[in-house]
Structures are given as C-alpha cells and as structure tokens.
C-alpha cells in the first residue's frame, strides 16, 4: 500500500477507537434535551423516579468519566465514503475493526462478541462480520464520515419485522409499530427512539430501521408524508402508557424516526428497531489527508 493509504488507515483506526469510547461516555445534547423534556412531562411517581435516576446517572457518567451504560453493545458504524477518498472500503473496514478492538483492550471495555452457536467469546468486540458497517457512497467528494453507534442488546432484542400486505395499508404499519412497542414493554429501556423502516425488502426494511435510530432526535424524514407519519406514531406511542422502564407513565418514547424505500407493488414491509434511552452515537470526519475532526454528527 502507498504511504498515504497506510497513514489514512491508521487515522481511521484512531477515529474508530476514540468514537467507540466517546459514544459510550458522553451522550448527545439532543438526547439530553429530550430526556430533560421527558422529565418535565412525566406525571407518574415511578416514571419520575426513573427519569430522575437517568438524569443523575448521566451527570455521574460526566463527572466520573465513566460509561453511561455497562452494555458496550455491538459496535455499529455508518460510513459515508467520498468517491475520491484515497482509501478503499476494504481497508476502512480493517481500520474500524482494529480501532474497535484497540478501544476494548485499552480502556478496557466489556467484550460482548461471541460465536452465535457456541457462545464462546470471539475477541475484543470483534468477530466474524463484527463490527457491523453501513455504507453510503458520495459522488464528487474526497472525505470520509464515520458514525459509531454502540448498540445495546436489551433494545436490539426488541426488533420486529412484519411483511404487511398492500391491503393492510398505512393502518397496518401503525398497528404493527404500536403492538411491537407495547409488547416490548420495559425490556428495551424506554423511553428511547423507535426506528421504523418501511418499504424495500424484508432485510432492507430492517436496515432502514437501524438507520432511523442513528438520526439525531428532532430530525425529520425529508418526505413530508413520511414525516407526518413520524409525528402521528410518536403521539400514538406515548398514549400507550408503557412509561419509563415499562413501569407505567406518560413518556414511552422520546421520538419515532422512519426511513423508507420504494418497494414492490405487492410488498408492504415494516421493521421496528428500538434504541434505548442511552441512545449513544458519535462521529468523525476524516479528510483525504488523514486529519480527523470529531463532531457529534459528521
């Protein structure tokens, strides 16, 4: 490999190692604001107790420099790769993997990665096809944006897919999201972000649901029709009374984000991916010359 590529690969590795730990320790401001608003809104005794405790916890993580949550998750990255970025995605992947492992060993962080059948640990939060990377390719650009989203298992276990039929319509989509979140109850650490993927294919709908949970709270789908559905589902979900940690209350979700794709005329897939209240994410921009700029949402 040319020297520039070697240097770039080590920059991406540095970025990944930093992002993983940063994301785990310091939750984004939009999330802090949403949790504060939830605390103001909640009226149930148990719900207030939960939201007060979350508030204390976030402050202690800040003051002690500790992880917000012990679940260091499964490392998920979203990469936007410029057409002219001088490092091939195959090498970007190697760098993300090396950075994840380095952060896990150096901090140290709990390693969660296991073989899916034997359940034996496969390494420092890496393994076969771990970490998981979502790719996006950007024309006429020479940079790289990396977002790290450590995904906790409590919320990931609350993932649901339904192949609705066209005759189920939008009503079918709404019903499935509602029944999924009620069924999940307190397990995914509510109140969090409900990610919904609609359209595409079965696998792509779930992919989109994961992209939806990666968005900052307050962002809207660019399609006004979909954005309207986000608002409607957000209101409906908060009427279910599941409440903070599923103990009952007014605040069940902080936000509902939807990502969509066009689909086949006979398909109507709906996927739900939940992100817990500790909705951790951190990003970096890596320039073509290897300079790293850390930003919450690059």
């Amino acid at each position, binding site marked *: 490999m040319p020297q520039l590529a070697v240097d770039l690969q080590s920059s991406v590795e540095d970025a990944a190692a930093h992002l993983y730990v940063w994301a785990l320790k310091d939750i984004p401001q939009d999330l802090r604001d949403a949790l504060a608003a939830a605390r103001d809104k909640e009226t149930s005794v148990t719900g207030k107790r939960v939201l007060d405790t979350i508030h204390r916890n976030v402050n202690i993580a800040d003051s002690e420099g500790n992880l917000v949550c012990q679940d260091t998750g499964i490392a998920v990255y979203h990469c936007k790769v410029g057409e002219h970025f001088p490092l091939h995605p195959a090498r970007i992947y190697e760098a993300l993997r090396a950075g994840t492992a380095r952060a896990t060993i150096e901090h140290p962080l709990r390693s969660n990665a296991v073989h899916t059948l034997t359940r034996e*640990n496969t390494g420092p939060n890496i393994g076969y096809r771990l970490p998981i990377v979502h790719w996006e390719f950007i024309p006429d650009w020479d940079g790289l944006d990396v977002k790290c989203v450590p995904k906790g298992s409590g919320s990931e276990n609350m993932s649901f897919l339904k192949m609705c039929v066209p005759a189920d319509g939008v009503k079918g989509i709404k019903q499935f999201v509602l029944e999924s979140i009620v069924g999940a109850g307190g397990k995914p650490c509510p109140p969090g972000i409900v990610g919904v993927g609609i359209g595409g294919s079965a696998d792509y709908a779930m992919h989109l649901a994961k992209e939806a949970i990666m968005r900052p709270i307050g962002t809207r789908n660019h399609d006004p029709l979909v954005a309207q559905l986000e608002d409607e589902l957000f209101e409906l979900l908060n009427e279910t009374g599941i409440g903070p940690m599923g103990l009952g209350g007014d605040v069940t979700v902080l936000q509902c984000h939807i990502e969509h794709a066009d689909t086949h005329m006979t398909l109507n897939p709906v996927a739900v991916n939940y992100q817990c209240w500790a909705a951790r994410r951190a990003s970096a921009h890596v320039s073509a010359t290897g300079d790293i700029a850390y930003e919450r949402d690059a």
Partner: protein
Amino acid sequence: MTKHELTFPITDPAEILKLRAGDEVTVQGHIIGIRDRTQMRIFDEGVAPPMDLSGAFLLHTAPNVRKVDDHYEKICIGTTTSARMVRFTEPLGRQYGVRAICGKGGFPDEAVEPMRQLGMVYFAIVGGAAALETTQIEEIEEVAWEELMPECLWKFRVKDFGPLTVGIDAHGNSLYRDVQTRAKQKLEELYARL
C-alpha cells in the same frame, strides 16, 4: 407507595412480605451478580453454585471489570434485561432460598405465582443507569466461575443501592402485568381511531 431500606441477605421473610408493588427500596449489604450462562450452569448443567444464595438478592448483571493481581476492580457495572431468565425464578427460590431478584424490564406473568408462593420479590432498577450503579457498589468481594467471564457469579458489597421499585411483590401483584393490561385496552381504542 412507601419507602424502605433493606439489608441483604435477609434472614426474616417478613422483610419481603412488607413490600408492595410500586414501593421504593434502597438496599445495603451484599448482593450477588448472576446472568444467563451462570443460571444455565446451575440448572441446565446441574452444578451447585459455590456461594450461599439463601436470603439473597440477585442482580442480573455482567460487569465491566479490570483484574488487578488476584482480585477484580469495578469499571462499570449495570443491569441487564431480566425476561430472558424468567424460567429460573422458581428453582432459585425453591432450591436455594433466593428472596429478591433485581433486573430491568420486568418478568413476564409466569413469575408472579412462584414469587407469591415462595415469598420473593422482583426489584426494577433503572436499566442503563450503570454509572450511578457503579458508585453504589463498594467492592467486588468474590468471583466464582471466572471461565464464564463476564457471566460469572459475583459478590458485591453495596451501599445505598437504588432507588429500586418493587415491580412484582410477594402478594401476587405485578406492575408489569397492570401496565400491559391497561396498554392492551388502550390499543383497542387507538386502533379504532386509525
């Protein structure tokens, strides 16, 4: 809704019977960390746990720790989803005398009756609030089954551990069942509006 302070392990079952679903509890003394694989070893593989669980408070956890010489230091200790481990509730109470199980997200309804019969409670902790929880764990005093790392048996000494909410009491009440019952009724109403 009353506030209580309890010290574990408990010796008097009446301590558990005075708790009611929704009450707030703070815990002192010693608690035992346990998880999926730990309980699979006890019950599926039939290996007796090398720690006394009578009157115990079990915490569903797999901590972040650092090994220094021959002992473990805490880094970040939090709590995992309980529902995956519900099937161990009855044997934990019946065979080993466990009195309290603490986790997040609650137990499904199948735990309610064994907990009533055996005088056990489920404590709801705030999931994800591990930075706070770590400050309330004073020391990791004992670790067994290190080969299951991080799903070992852990003995922690705690101070002012909480606040916990009684999610399921020993009288057949469950906040989770109540919330689900109400939510399912509400869903019917919401579906009619769609």
